């Protein structure tokens, strides 16, 4: 292996990795936000709304991410949406993730025991407080593994952004490979970077899970 290559290309690979993390974090946050709002909106008793939102989810889940990105980036200008490559990448990732996150949140809402909400309603808690203080904390416990799983999947979907010339890790690695013909080294290093990101995400996920479920497993002093 030619280690000299990494000295020369290290800085650009690291920049690319930074860009990957930025796009992933922003895209995931956007996807979760849209997904949460979608799941919430589907619970509103507005005729037809749930059907429309379900159609959105099915279309997004039913088409490849690559196609969606092209539609957004190249087709966007025809309907007045003109985005630079990085913004298009983040928005695209957000839309793609939102459909999956919406389904995860929908399941989470359904899994909250009805009695918790009834207790809150009978105490006259306002709907916003019920959502924030009772429903979301309860559902997070059951959906956290699925959320982390989707976040991990999205780390690897960021490679597709390279075709929009977003200067993320895949793009930088391809440049390196094209300039040096060192295909194996490039791919090896790239894999390491993605693995590192996934490992960090899943560790953080496990830590969050432990924290959220501590009240279910804690060793209390006295149990009568």
């Amino acid at each position, binding site marked *: 292996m030619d280690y000299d290559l990494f000295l020369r290309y290290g800085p650009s690979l690291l920049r690319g990795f930074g860009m990957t993390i930025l796009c992933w974090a922003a895209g995931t946050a956007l996807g979760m936000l849209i997904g949460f709002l979608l799941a919430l909106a589907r619970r509103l008793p507005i005729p037809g709304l749930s059907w429309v939102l379900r159609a959105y989810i099915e279309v997004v889940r039913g088409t490849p991410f690559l196609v969606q990105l092209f539609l957004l980036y190249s087709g966007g200008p025809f309907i007045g949406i003109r985005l630079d490559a990085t913004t298009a990448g983040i928005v695209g990732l957000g839309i793609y993730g939102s459909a999956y996150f919406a389904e995860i949140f929908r399941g989470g809402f359904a899994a909250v*025991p009805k*009695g*918790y909400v*009834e*207790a*809150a*309603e*009978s*105490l*006259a*808690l*306002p*709907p916003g*407080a019920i959502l924030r*203080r*009772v429903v979301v*904390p*309860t559902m997070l*416990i059951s959906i956290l593994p699925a959320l982390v799983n989707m976040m991990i999947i999205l780390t690897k979907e960021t490679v597709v952004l390279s075709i929009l010339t977003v200067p993320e890790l895949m793009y930088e690695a391809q440049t390196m490979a094209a300039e040096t013909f060192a295909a194996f080294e490039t791919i090896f290093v790239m894999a390491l970077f993605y693995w590192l990101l996934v490992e960090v995400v899943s560790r953080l996920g496990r830590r969050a899970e432990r924290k*959220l479920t501590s*009240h*279910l497993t*804690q060793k*209390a002093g*006295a*149990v*009568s």
Partner: protein
Amino acid sequence: MTDVTASPIAGSSPEDRPMITISHLSKSFGETQVLKDINLTVHKSEVVCLIGPSGSGKSTLLRCLNFLESYEAGEVRMEGRLVGYTEGFPRRKMKNRELRALRREVGMVFQHFNLWPHMTAMENVREALVQVKGLPLEEATAKAEAMLTRVGLADRMHAHPSRLSGGQQQRVAIARVVAMEPHVILFDEPTSALDPELVGEVLQVMKDLAADGMTMVVVTHEMGFAANVADRVAFLDGGHIVEDGPPRQVFHESSEPRVRQFLQTYHERNSF
């Protein structure tokens, strides 16, 4: 045998105005009519027990009183205010804000406690004090602690529900309701999910509340509690109130065969 109060506002002074007036209340789940022309009045500081076989409509009736269940016909009035619907015809459902104003006066204790599992006992009691009454956090905390002390849980207030026994959880749930200073408390089979040895501690808290003059409507299978604490007992069967009167009358002098038969099985089961 039922107490019919058809006039929407019976009496004018607050003292003789009934706490709860149920008139001609009917409710269906799909094709099945579960409540049929229910009439019942509950006065201030009265303890009314609803008894009867499973599926007789007791819990549904109770849940109509704070509009956790909607009803189609008749009306429920809480201190004169129509529950769940706006006055006038055709009637429309109340706005959430109005329903919440009404529910501030009506507490409910559930069979399965329904404590929020991610909050400690104290946080469970404090939550509505902050979110609904708008108390500052410190004041709400002090009040929550005082309430838990009152139900005998001073040493367990920082435990999460999963670390509490069923009896303790139900006492937290009662403290959570009483802290809001409601005018009425509805109990939906509060001891049915408890191990027999834990029933007593919950009934004791309820007896104390009754002694303090709290207006209570209690769906229960605890005939001892109904006989000793209730001012009135209403027996439901098939969605009707079959008998309504003082416990002595319902338990010992009822001429209704269904009431006698129901109580007979109770006597047999409890006298091994």
